[in-house]
Structure formats: structure tokens, C-alpha cells
């Protein structure tokens, strides 16, 4: 089932590239940096391809290539032990291929796009770092290793969003992304911990057998699997920009465009979808409330972001909301159990969304950094390659047959329509009815979102590439097609956008075709399921499937038609009128439903107020005025006391040494002996018990001689230290007891009847 393969190479190469570029890139110049960065990713892509071919050809469906990341134990804490390894199976194969090859194309593109950038080396160092971290995420064989990659891509994302940190806006966007992701990551980490606590394993390979343990009832009567799934999904919401944590992604467009294409469209943001598919056992826990949550959040996000996308004017903002929306589609896919469809859409989306962003970069490159689409127009004739590739991407994302988006989006829509959530059998009739209706509701939301998608993408296309140029003359003069390094990836991604969908054609469409062709066309459908993930739900009747497909296509065409009517050949007056007429709706959408303002009011401001209180009260008063003043005051006054001895006079120092030595000698002998002669007398008829010495003394330090009757002659001599001594008197009377303690080493002799420092209570015994 498993076979060893040096998977670490796939990770190591980009990380090495990052190290080289960050440490030495600046010194060796841009050519060096480009070669190192691109060849590192190309090497990773080739090794990954070799590995994936092995998975495809030599391993059984559930097989995986494995490798060690850390030899022996990775984390050891008492009984807790964790290993770190890498694993490549069919699911991670899809991700690895997408990540490495698209990263390679974007690296090549960026060498052209960033050619005037002074911080070239830093950019490519970060980009390689991201690629390495993303591959750790994808190749990790357990949730903790994935989490390492998860945090790594978060870091790289933060660094790249704020790449031009000289502008406050960009740095703020980076911070926002980082902080919002922290919220999600916290949930993710809690989910891992809970999983480990309850189930005892976090390795993906063991997930097949944990379903039973996940059923354990936990908080609020729900099975523990539900809570783990929800916690993991909180992390996925952060990373994959779902409601309510999507707000960072549109702002993240502050980063350079290749970054938006690679991280914030094609790879990193899909990590959440990957994790849900990877942990499907957890999400499948009965009752399937977690899946309902995932699908519901996904559908809501898809619709929500798509409507915002309709009115935005910034090129990259439109694409950003489009990404959020498409990620929502994917989550509906994995949430309704159509895992194959979700992952398939992830793959096809990576092609055309990366292409869209690169196209946007190409346009903005030509426009001198201008991103407002209202100031563009008619660019098609100046940059034909960008225009026609963009045309293909728009067809793909709108879902026109036979482009990639059609098949994947259709698979999700069909899966959603046919989905059934298994909930508790004790539901009332109305509840069961609602649960049965839920997938249809989701389907409706997705269909609306698809309509919006087709509309805003084609609005973008028409406004930017058709009609007359609306910018300044200087900009128009400057318009040019981008260099080869940028157009080549555009073309390749366009080819991918055409072809990628053709490996996941629904089975109904391939009936009657030759078997070999059918095998190719439905390749993706049985690549994952049922080996890796459960099979997608499918409509039972063929006519329904055809109808759904036709409906989706019609919706897309409607969207395109609407966009063409309003924006073909420039922004029409109808569009402007419509905007004025629907003033309120437009304003709401333009301001993104005021979500940022809401968060600002609900979270940011209260937090800020708390922070101000902490600053003014705790920091300024308690710490600055209190601790930092009192502490030094104590130290200062003690110092003032002690510094009098530090008078620089060597003679006094040596006097102090002498006094100290004398004190030690006195303390260790005289005082010890003094303690030794202290005693307690207990009389019982004629037997007297003498308890000697201090309890703190160690036995054997002193030798005693005891005169029981005070006649000056010691009755017991050479008595070793003993806490209690007994003596029997022959006759009655009052007796004086004298104890002599001798320190054998220092020959210190001390008697209890000494006039000077004798025993503190005179020792005597009255015997009857």
C-alpha cells in the first residue's frame, strides 16, 4: 500500500531556493535570482510529476508514497510522541500537481512582471518560501505537519501582501490578513488538539478507522466529531476566506499581482477545501450537521461575494470577490459530500483564476499600475494575447461548455441538488422536510451566484477590452502587449482552462463513446472516489442531470448576455441609469454590505478601547508608574546602602574578608556546639530522659559527655549524637545535669553550665 520515495526533495528544492535568494540574491543580481527561483520550482515540479506518475501507475487506488520528514520522533513530551512524515496519495497528487506547475508558470510570469522591482531577490525568496510551505501543507502525512505548512503559507502570504511595505495601506492589509488568519488558525489548532485527545491519532493514514470514536457524545449532545469538524472548519474559513473570516482576501490584493494569482487565487486559499476533503471522515460524522454547516457557509459566501463583485470597480477587487465566491462553490461541493466535485473545481479554478489574475497583472502592467476598470477600455486591440486568453478564462469561469469551469461547476451543482444530509432519525416531520429541502436551497443560492459570476466576469471583460480607452493620453500612448515571459504563462494557463475540464466529464455525457475515450474523459471521477473520498451524490434520473446541466448553461449565458447588453462597447447609459435607479442596492454592494464597518464597530473598536484601557491604566499606571518605579526604587535604595561598602579601599575589603572568615569559623563551631548543649529533661519516676540538641543538627557532628548528677565527673562519655538519652537514678533528689558537647574536628568544647552562652535553660532533674 505504501512505498518509500524521496518526497522531501519536493519541499527542499523551493526552500533551498528561498534560502539562496534571501541570503545571497541581492548580491548576485536579478538573472541569478530568476534562474534559482524558477529552477527550484521546476525541479520540485519534475520530482512531483515523477512521484504522481508512480502513484498513478504502480500503486493501488488507496496506496501512497511516504517519506520521513524528521527522523525518529518529532515532538516528545512525556508520553506524548509525534512523528513527522510526508505522504503522497491520490488526493495530495492533485494538489501537488496544481501547486508546483502553476507556481512554476507564475514564477516565470513574475520574472517579467517584477523586472523593474528593486527588491527582486526578496520577492522571489518569499515566493519560493511560499511554494515550499504550501508543499509541506499538501504533503504532510498528519494534521500537525499540515499545520506547519499552514502557518508557513500564512507567513509567506503576510510577507507578500505587505511586500511594498513602504505604503501604509499595504502593510495594513498584510496585518489584517495575518490577524484574521490567526483567528482561524486558533480554531484549527484546537481542532487538532481535540482530535488527538479524543481519538489519539492525527495521522491521515489512520483516519479510515476512527469513525466509531468520533461518534462519542461530547459537548451539547453533539458527537465529538462534529466539534472537531467545526473547529477545523473555522481554520479553513480563515485560510480559504469564507464568511465570516473572508474580509482579509479583498484587501490582500495590495500585494503584487503574481502573489494574488498564486497565493490568493490558485493555491493557498484552496488549502481549506483540501483539508475538508482530507479529513472527510471527521466531517462525515453522523449526524451530518458539520457538513450542513460547511455547505451552508460555502453557499452563503458564494452568493454574498458574487453580488459584491457585480459593482466593484477595481480590477483585482472584482477578481478577489470572485475568488471568495468560487471558494464558496468548492465548500458547497465538499460540504454536500461531492468531494470529487469540490476538489475538481479547486483544480480547474486554479487554472482560470490564476490566468485571470495574470491577465489583470498584464493589463495593469500596461496601464502603469492603474487598477480602476472605469479608466480602461478598448485594451483588446493593444494587447491581443492578453485579451484572447482573458476571453478564454471568462468563458471557463462563467461555465460555458466545454471549458473547464463548466464541468466542475456542473458537478458541484448536480451534487448539491442531489445531496441528502443524514440527520437524526428522531426528527419531527417538519424538521426532516427542512433537511430534505436544504440542498435545494443551496442549489438555488449557487445558481444565483453562478448568474452573478457570469455577469461580473463578462462585465469586466467588456469594460476593459472593448469600447474606447477612457484613461489619460499618456497612459494610452504607453499601452503595449506584455513581454514573452508574461504572455507564455497566460497562453499555457488558457490551454489548461480549456482542457482541464475534459478529464472530469459527467458519466451521462460519455455514454456510447469508445471505452478508451470514455476512460480519459471521466478520469478524474474515479481518480479520487471511491478510493480516497466517498462518491459524489448524483441525481438518479438522467433527464434531471441533463436538465441541471442545461439550466446551469442557460444561467451562464443569461449572465453573459446581460453583461453584453449593458457593457459591450463600453459602459452603456442603461448601466449608468440602472445604477442610479437601484441607488440603495448599489450603495450596499459598493460598500460590500458594510461588513468591514460592522466588524470595525463590533470587534475592532471595542478591542481598541480595551487596548487603550490596558495601555493607559495597566501600562502607563501600573507598570510604568508602579512596577518600573517601585522596583528600581527598592534596588536603588538597597544599592545606596550596599555601595557604601564598595568604597574602593582595598584595605577595607581585606578586613571584610577577615571578618567574614572569622564569622564563618565562629558560626560553624561555636554556634553548632551551643545548639548541641540545649536540652529538654523529662522525668518519669527515677528514669530521666534527656532530649539533646537542635532538630536541625545532623547526627554525628558532636560527641557528648554527660554528668547526670552534677558531681563534676562525667558519667557517660563519648556519647555519639543521639536525640534522646535515658538515665536511671539510684536515689531521689534534685540533680544538676551537665552536658558537654565537643566538636571533634575543631575541638570546640561547650558545656551547658558555661557562664558565657551556656544552655538557655539550666538542665536539672527532680527525682522522687
Amino acid at each position, binding site marked *: 500500500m505504501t512505498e518509500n520515495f524521496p518526497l522531501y526533495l519536493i519541499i527542499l528544492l523551493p526552500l533551498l531556493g528561498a534560502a539562496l535568494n534571501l541570503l545571497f540574491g541581492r548580491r548576485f543580481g536579478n538573472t541569478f535570482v530568476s534562474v534559482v527561483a524558477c529552477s527550484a520550482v521546476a525541479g520540485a515540479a519534475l520530482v512531483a510529476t515523477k512521484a504522481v506518475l508512480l502513484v498513478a501507475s504502480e500503486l493501488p487506488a488507496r496506496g501512497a508514497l511516504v517519506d520521513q520528514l524528521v527522523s525518529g520522533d518529532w515532538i516528545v513530551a512525556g508520553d506524548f510522541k509525534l512523528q513527522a512524515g510526508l505522504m503522497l496519495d491520490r488526493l495530495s497528487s492533485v494538489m501537488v500537481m496544481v501547486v508546483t506547475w502553476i507556481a512554476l508558470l507564475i514564477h516565470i510570469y513574475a520574472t517579467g512582471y517584477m523586472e523593474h522591482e528593486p527588491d527582486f531577490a526578496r520577492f522571489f525568496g518569499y515566493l519560493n518560501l511560499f511554494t515550499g510551505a504550501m508543499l509541506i501543507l499538501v504533503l504532510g502525512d498528519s494534521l500537525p505537519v499540515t499545520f506547519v505548512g499552514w502557518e508557513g503559507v500564512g507567513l509567506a502570504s503576510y510577507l507578500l501582501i505587505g511586500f511594498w511595505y513602504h505604503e501604509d495601506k499595504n502593510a495594513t492589509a498584510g496585518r489584517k490578513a495575518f490577524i484574521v488568519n490567526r483567528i482561524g488558525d486558533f480554531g484549527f489548532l484546537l481542532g487538532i488538539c481535540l482530535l488527538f485527545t479524543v481519538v489519539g491519532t492525527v495521522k491521515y493514514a489512520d483516519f479510515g478507522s476512527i469513525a466509531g470514536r468520533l461518534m462519542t457524545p461530547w459537548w451539547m449532545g453533539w458527537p465529538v466529531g462534529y466539534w472537531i469538524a467545526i473547529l477545523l472548519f473555522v481554520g479553513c474559513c480563515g485560510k480559504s476566506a469564507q464568511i465570516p473570516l473572508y474580509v482579509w482576501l479583498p484587501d490582500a490584493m495590495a500585494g503584487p499581482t503574481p502573489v494574488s494569482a498564486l497565493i490568493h487565487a490558485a493555491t493557498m486559499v484552496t488549502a481549506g477545501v483540501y483539508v475538508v476533503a482530507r479529513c472527510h471522515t471527521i466531517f462525515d460524522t453522523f449526524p451530518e450537521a458539520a457538513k450542513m454547516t460547511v455547505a451552508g457557509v460555502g453557499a452563503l459566501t458564494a452568493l454574498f461575494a458574487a453580488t459584491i463583485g457585480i459593482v466593484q470597480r477595481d480590477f483585482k477587487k472584482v477578481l478577489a470577490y470572485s475568488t471568495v465566491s468560487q471558494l464558496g462553490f468548492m465548500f458547497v461541493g465538499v460540504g454536500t459530500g461531492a468531494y470529487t466535485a469540490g476538489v475538481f473545481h479547486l483544480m480547474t479554478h486554479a487554472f482560470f483564476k490564476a490566468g485571470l489574475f495574470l491577465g489583470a497583472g498584464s493589463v495593469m502592467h500596461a496601464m502603469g499600475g492603474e487598477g480602476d476598470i472605469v479608466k480602461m477600455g478598448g485594451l483588446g486591440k493593444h494587447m491581443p494575447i492578453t485579451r484572447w486568453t482573458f476571453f478564454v478564462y471568462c468563458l471557463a469561469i462563467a461555465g460555458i461548455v466545454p471549458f473547464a469551469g463548466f464541468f466542475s461547476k456542473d458537478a458541484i451543482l448536480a451534487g448539491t441538488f442531489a445531496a441528502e444530509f443524514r440527520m437524526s432519525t428522531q426528527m419531527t416531520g417538519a424538521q426532516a422536510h427542512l433537511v430534505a429541502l436544504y440542498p435545494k436551497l443551496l442549489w438555488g443560492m449557487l445558481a444565483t451566484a453562478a448568474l452573478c459570476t457570469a455577469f461580473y466576469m463578462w462585465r469586466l471583460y467588456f469594460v476593459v477590452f472593448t469600447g474606447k480607452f477612457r484613461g489619460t493620453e499618456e497612459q494610452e500612448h504607453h499601452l503595449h502587449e506584455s513581454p514573452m515571459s508574461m504572455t507564455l504563462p497566460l497562453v499555457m494557463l488558457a490551454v489548461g482552462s480549456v482542457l482541464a475540464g475534459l478529464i472530469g466529464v459527467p458519466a451521462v455525457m460519455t455514454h456510447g463513446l469508445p471505452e478508451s475515450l470514455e476512460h480519459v474523459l471521466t478520469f478524474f471521477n474515479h481518480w479520487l472516489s471511491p478510493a480516497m473520498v466517498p462518491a459524489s451524490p448524483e441525481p438518479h434520473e438522467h433527464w434531471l442531470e441533463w436538465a441541471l446541466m442545461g439550466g446551469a448553461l442557460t444561467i451562464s449565458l443569461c449572465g453573459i448576455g446581460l453583461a453584453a447588453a449593458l457593457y459591450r462597447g463600453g459602459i452603456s447609459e442603461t448601466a449608468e441609469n440602472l445604477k442610479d435607479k437601484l441607488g440603495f442596492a448599489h450603495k450596499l454592494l459598493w460598500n460590500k454590505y458594510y461588513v468591514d464597518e460592522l466588524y470595525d464597530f463590533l470587534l475592532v473598536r471595542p478591542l481598541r478601547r480595551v487596548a487603550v484601557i490596558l495601555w493607559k491604566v495597566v501600562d502607563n499606571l501600573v507598570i510604568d508608574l508602579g512596577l518600573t518605579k517601585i522596583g528600581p526604587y527598592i534596588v536603588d535604595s538597597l544599592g545606596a546602602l550596599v555601595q557604601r561598602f564598595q568604597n574602593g579601599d582595598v*584595605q577595607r575589603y581585606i578586613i571584610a574578608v*577577615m*571578618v567574614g572568615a572569622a564569622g564563618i*569559623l565562629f558560626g560553624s563551631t561555636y554556634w553548632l556546639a551551643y545548639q548541641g548543649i540545649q536540652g529538654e529533661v523529662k522525668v518519669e519516676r527515677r528514669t530521666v530522659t534527656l532530649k539533646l540538641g537542635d532538630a536541625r543538627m545532623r547526627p554525628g557532628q558532636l560527641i557528648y559527655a554527660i554528668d547526670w548528677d552534677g558531681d563534676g565527673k562525667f558519667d557517660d562519655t563519648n556519647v555519639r549524637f543521639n536525640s534522646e538519652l535515658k538515665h536511671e537514678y539510684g536515689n531521689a533528689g534534685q540533680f544538676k545535669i551537665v552536658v558537654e558537647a565537643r566538636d*571533634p574536628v575543631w575541638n570546640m568544647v561547650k558545656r551547658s553550665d558555661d557562664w558565657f552562652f551556656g544552655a538557655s535553660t539550666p538542665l536539672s532533674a527532680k527525682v522522687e
Partner: protein
Amino acid sequence: MIAVATSDFASLDLGSLLMQAAQVQAVPASSLTPAGWTPAWAFWILSALVVVGAISTISQRSLISAVMSLVATFFGLAGLYATLSAHFLAAIQVLVYAGAIMVLFVFVIMVLNRDEVERVSDRGLLDKAIGAGALVYLAVRLGEVIASPVGPVSRMSKPAPEFGTVAKIGEYFFTEFLFPFEAISILLIIAVIGAVVVARTVVSRPTTSYEVPNAASGSAEGGDDHAGGDAHGAHGGH
């Protein structure tokens, strides 16, 4: 007997000499542990020389007299070493201490050419009294312990024939004490260089904090004609 002693260094053992002498003195054998070996008179004379010399060293007003007293002390000590069968050490004591180091002292005293005006400063006399008290306490207690019959009984037996020979010391320096020996040689080199660096006549010296700035500008050739000594007064004293 003396002829024998000069011909054979090892047999210059005053201990064995005096062992015979002690027996000759007809001390009741029963009251003595068998190995009373040192000629008691030699010890007493030498230790008297040492104690008187030491007291003289720390009490003389004239530095040259103090050094001479110290030389006498060292000679006495060398004799005591010899009674302890440490003939080589005795010779080194005379050569290095009474010879080299003392010559160094004499040179420095001649260079400085200043006798003390005031032997003991009247400042901090209370401290000094306390220190002296502590010292006396320490000495008396230590002496008490050493002299006590309970402590390790101290009669010494006749040493083995090779004890105290130069060969034996050399053997130790090439085996067990090799590292300290090498370390000491490095220390001596450092001391030689350090002494030269510290005592060298400085031609131009940067202004130090206790100097009066305008005095420093006039003392480029360093040494003797600046106001550094006076400037100390401005620093505050005690």
C-alpha cells in the same frame, strides 16, 4: 659529618641529623613519640628569625629596612624548608625570593626614593581594629585546633631516602604537574610582558578622568610635570 653533607646533598637532612641529637639529649623515650626528628633548637632559632623578621617587615618606617627584614625572614624560611627536607625549595627560596624578588623591591624603592611619612593612616582605625580582632580570633582558633591533642597527631617519621630530591620534583613536573607547569610558564611570560607594558614610560597619554584638562595639554611628554596627583583632591576623597 659536614664533609659528607656537602658531598651528598640529600644527606644534608637536618632531620636525620637531629634525630640522633634528640636521642642524645636523653629525653625520656616514653614521653616522646618515636619520631622526634627535627633538631628543636634549629626550629626555634629559625622560627624566631622568621617571626621577628616578619614583624619588622610590616613595622619599619624605612622601606629599605623593611626589605632587609623581609630578606632575613626569607632566609629563615629557607632554613625551615631545609629542616622539612625540602632542600631544593630552600635553594629556590634564597635564589628567587631573597635574591631576585627582593632585588626588584630594592630597585623600585630606589626609583621611587620615598620613605613613608605616615605608616598607618588615621582613617578607618575602627575598621582596622575590627579586622585585627577578627584576625586574632582566626589565628588563635586555628592555633588551638592545630595544637590540640585531638587533631591529627603530628610527629613526623623519617622520610624515605628519595624524599626531597630534585629528581623527584622534576619527575612530578613532567608527569602529574605537566599542565600547571606549562601554565605557569605562560603566566611568567605574560607577567614579563605585562610588567613592561605597565611600567613603561608613556610618551603621550590620553586624558584620564581624574586629570585636570588644561594640565593634560601641557604634559605631552608624559611623566612627571603634570597635576594628576593634585587633581585627585578635586575628585572628592572619602
